[in-house]
């Protein structure tokens, strides 16, 4: 019968309209950002950051400037220059570590390939700036964040990394002990 479609449709939209008042599972509510923040799942990835252990961002930096992430990054937005001592010998830490987040696509490949668990994906997304060139090129001090921060944002992942690193350190310690 002509017109039944309209009645049916009105019934369904009315049911949805009323139903969402009583059943919170059915409704999607708008969060009053920035007063309220959405809960971000642990796996969420935005841009990478570098982890340091302890309290000194320079001494504790895990990165050894192996350039694995620089080579694997699909749009090549990481650039690393290794530190050298006075004699020109390459030291195992970066002097320059730059990340151009206007190029980075947040794919997470750098975090995946880093053999030292040094680069990880961040949750921080409020990164708007007034200038679009230099302020989007993050340098070492801007990128370095403490392990505590990582533990807070990625509890499960950080625990796995910490256990792995502790095991490695134990093994290395027992190796240096055994020949002595």
């Amino acid at each position, binding site marked *: 019968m002509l017109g039944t479609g309209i009645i049916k449709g009105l019934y369904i939209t009315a049911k949805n309209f009323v139903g969402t008042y009583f059943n919170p*599972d059915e409704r999607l509510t708008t969060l009053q950002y920035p007063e309220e923040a959405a809960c971000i799942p642990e796996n969420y990835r935005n841009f990478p950051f570098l982890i340091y252990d302890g309290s000194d961002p320079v001494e504790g930096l895990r990165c050894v400037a192996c350039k694995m992430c620089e080579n694997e990054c699909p749009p090549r937005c990481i650039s690393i220059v290794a530190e050298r001592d006075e004699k020109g010998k390459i030291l195992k830490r970066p002097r320059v570590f730059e990340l151009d987040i206007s190029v980075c696509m947040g794919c997470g490949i750098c975090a995946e390939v880093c053999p030292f668990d040094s680069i990880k994906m961040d949750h921080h997304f409020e990164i708007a700036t007034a200038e679009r060139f230099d302020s989007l090129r993050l340098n070492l001090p801007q990128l370095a964040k403490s392990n505590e921060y990582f533990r807070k944002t990625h509890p499960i992942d950080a625990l796995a990394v910490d256990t792995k690193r502790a095991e490695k350190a134990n093994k290395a310690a027992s190796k240096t002990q055994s020949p002595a």
Partner: protein
Amino acid sequence: MGKNFLAENLPETTVCSPAEVRPFYDDFHGDLMEISMGPHHPSTHGVFRMDVTLDGEIVVKLKPVFGYLHRNHEKIAEGNSYFAAIPYTDRLDYLCSLTNNWAYVHAVEKLAGITVPERAEYLRIILGELGRLINHVCLVGFLLNDLGTSFTPLLYSLRERERMLDLVEELTGSRMMCNFFRFGGLRTDISADWLARLKGYLEGLFARYLDEQDALLTGNEILLARTQGVGVLSPELAVRAGITGPMLRASGVNYDIRKVDRYSIYERFNFGIPIGAHGDTYDRYMMRMLEMRESVKIILQAIRTVPAGEHINPNAKNRGLRPKAGESYARIEGPKGELGFYLISDGSAKPYRFRIRPPSLINLTVLEEICIGQTLADTVVILGGVDIVLGEVDR
């Protein structure tokens, strides 16, 4: 010399009558009007332009113009390692990056002879079908929006998509740019808890959404009047033009790569392929609604039977992969049709040739044929039923 061109010096015969200078159509002395729809028209689904020539309200000529979103995808992939091309495939058809990932890793696995563990195949099917659900939910919502059922069905659809994307984000870290498939398996394992939640969602809210959508619109008189007999594509033309996916099946051709190629482990699942009869926009809409129910069936079967084991082949190399020289073409049944990747390897770490067969682009080639004789308002509906994503059309 100049004075010869003055009007009074011209011979009588060179004066044109108005009928000769102005174009006209057939015996009817009305003028044709050319309209450029797009590239920012809201109903062209992206930066896509249609040069439509109208006689009154009837389309007599239609030229699809694309390329506004060309990002040089194939060339970028040829300059990068095999591994680095995976996140770029997310950006082809950005509504369902999971199936794009799958098609690409499938091609590389064929090229390098990498095997995939059993568990990974099951999880891939779950994710691939989830990608199909996300795509079809979007399509149904946007198609109805194009029809002028302003917003309610679209919002219901996007609400469900949001729920699925939340699950996807929790698993892969990103709502749309998943980057989750790896050569030989998946990036991480999927927890039993996640699978249980997906199952609960599909059996609960999503099943209700499908029923609701059917009750709300599938039998609605206005929808029938606006879509039945609109944009009819004959099975002969569909086959000749290389149309694939739900659009081909809506024309009544029984061809689904999941059944034809039996790639992955699809032969272990019990599911049907909906076939249309008329090839019009209504059948295309119905194909999507019915396919969603079949996809739900596949996912539930897969969740029930997924074995324990590895989520990735431990011997598969992702970083620094150098397949031996050769070529491969692998295709899967993407949500929009046959999605294929053609790769040539010269033995180095970069693909020598990287070519994509995008279903959206090829399905778009018949747009003129199915639009001629329809009204301008119908072309919008027809385009909505073809289901294109410009990221994939232009690459």
